[in-house]
């Protein structure tokens, strides 16, 4: 069943066209990986789906409803949650307060503050710590937990491995894997191709705002992605 449908989406950044004619679908329970060079439009695309960025043309259809004109906070109430690039935690508030703020969405579901601490046990002793004082990995766990508090149907992850040490990235992706097992639909932006292909069922590559490659994670080759990533013919590893 199609959960998300992006149709001919375009988005601008000032004078720059950051996303052009993007069209793709995400089925319920799927994990879609979004790869591409810096400035390819991946973050802008996720933000447009979450409602944080107004598209210049096209539509976003979620769970059968056209949400293109819907403000972000209403999209959260429908079931879309974004873990933004750079985490964007409320630094002067504690971990627990960061989680509780997101509880405003009042959606039915299993996620509560205690559930989040069970899933991310490293956060338990940090409940009362101000978010700005956390390490990178702890902030990332808090940011994901915060999004989960809204009990999303669709979880958007924007570069959750950014700036984290490899072992910490592994921990983060272990929890992402558990979320996938639990049936959450996920769209994730990830620079590390191996990781993206390991966790996703489908992959999309963007170049200068356009979709240039789409395929099953199991069948897409590194060479194909490399070629699409740089826009160069015959670029092979």
């Amino acid at each position: 069943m199609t959960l998300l449908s992006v149709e001919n989406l375009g988005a601008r950044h000032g004078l720059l066209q950051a996303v052009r004619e993007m069209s793709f679908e995400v089925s319920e329970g799927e994990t879609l990986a979004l790869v591409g060079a810096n400035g390819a439009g991946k973050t802008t695309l996720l933000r447009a789906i979450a409602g944080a960025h107004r598209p210049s043309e096209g539509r976003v259809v979620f769970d059968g409803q056209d949400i293109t004109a819907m403000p972000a906070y209403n999209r959260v109430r429908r079931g879309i949650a974004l873990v933004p690039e750079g985490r964007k935690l409320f630094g002067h508030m504690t971990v627990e307060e960061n989680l509780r703020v997101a509880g405003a969405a009042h959606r039915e579901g299993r996620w509560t503050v205690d559930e989040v601490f069970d899933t991310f046990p490293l956060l338990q002793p940090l409940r009362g710590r101000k978010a700005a004082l956390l390490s990178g990995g702890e902030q990332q766990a808090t940011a994901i937990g915060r999004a989960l508090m809204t009990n999303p149907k669709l979880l958007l992850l924007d570069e959750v491995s950014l700036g984290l040490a490899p072992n910490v990235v592994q921990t983060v992706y272990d929890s992402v894997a558990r979320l996938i097992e639990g049936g959450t639909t996920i769209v994730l932006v990830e620079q590390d191709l191996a990781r993206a292909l390991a966790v996703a069922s489908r992959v999309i590559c963007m170049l200068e705002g356009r979709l240039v490659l789409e395929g099953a994670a199991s069948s897409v080759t590194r060479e194909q992605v490399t070629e699409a990533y740089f826009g160069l013919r015959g670029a092979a590893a």
Partner: protein
Amino acid sequence: MINAIIQGILLGGVYALLACGLSLMFGVMRIINLAHGSLALLGAYMTLLVVEHTSLGSYAALVIVLPGALVVGYVLQRSMLERSRRAGELVPLLTTFGLLIVIGNLLEHFFSPDTQSLPAGGIGTSSLHISSSISIGWFDVLTLAVAVAVIGGLQLMLSRTQFGREIRATSYDADTVELMGVNARAVYARATAIAVATAALAGVFYAMRSAFDPTSGGSELIYAFEAVVIGGLGSLWGTLAGGIVLGVAQTVGAQIDVRYFALAGHVVFLAVLIVRAIALANGIRLWGAASA
């Protein structure tokens, strides 16, 4: 002198009550509401209307006036201030200045230019005589108590309730808070509603302690600003402390010479500004909220 200090502290309560709404609006939305004093005056005049046309006393009238002030604040934010806020840092200054003038003119039009005052009830004139030189008015104590209660209540609301968390998160990062399901504009509107209600409350207490007319409120607004800055922008307890520091400075200054009342306050205000400016330039953090 001790009496002067005590009177200064009590006076600080009045200033803090007026200033806390100002502090809230700036802390949450970075809006400097130049019409804050006018809204307080409006609250006083609305209470006057209720008192004159019903059998309610000043305090009881608050039951009608305060909810009305909440509505006024909410509508004000959603209709006018929200657009001003998004238009730029200086636009709210212009808009609220315009509001100040409009409210003043409306009051002059609909009410007589004669001074009025609100009945303060029995408590208005009674006082506690501690010694021959020290006398504490019960009404002033009540005002200070109300100020402390309001500020304490607001602080509690901010730190313990879901609504308070939403306000704090929205003031930190309004874009991200929307991604968490919170309607930032509604949060702003509720914050303004509360700010205007506290202004109305302050206006009523002002009106009970002294006479007022449609042109009142100017110097009180300035004192409110001074209290907010002395205590640190964005900190409610700081606003209380700032109000008290200002009140004490004024009354002690008046002890030296009656004409020095306002001047003493301004001098202290200027001194605090200079200290803050130097600290800011050198990266030293002072008291108050995150921003120096």
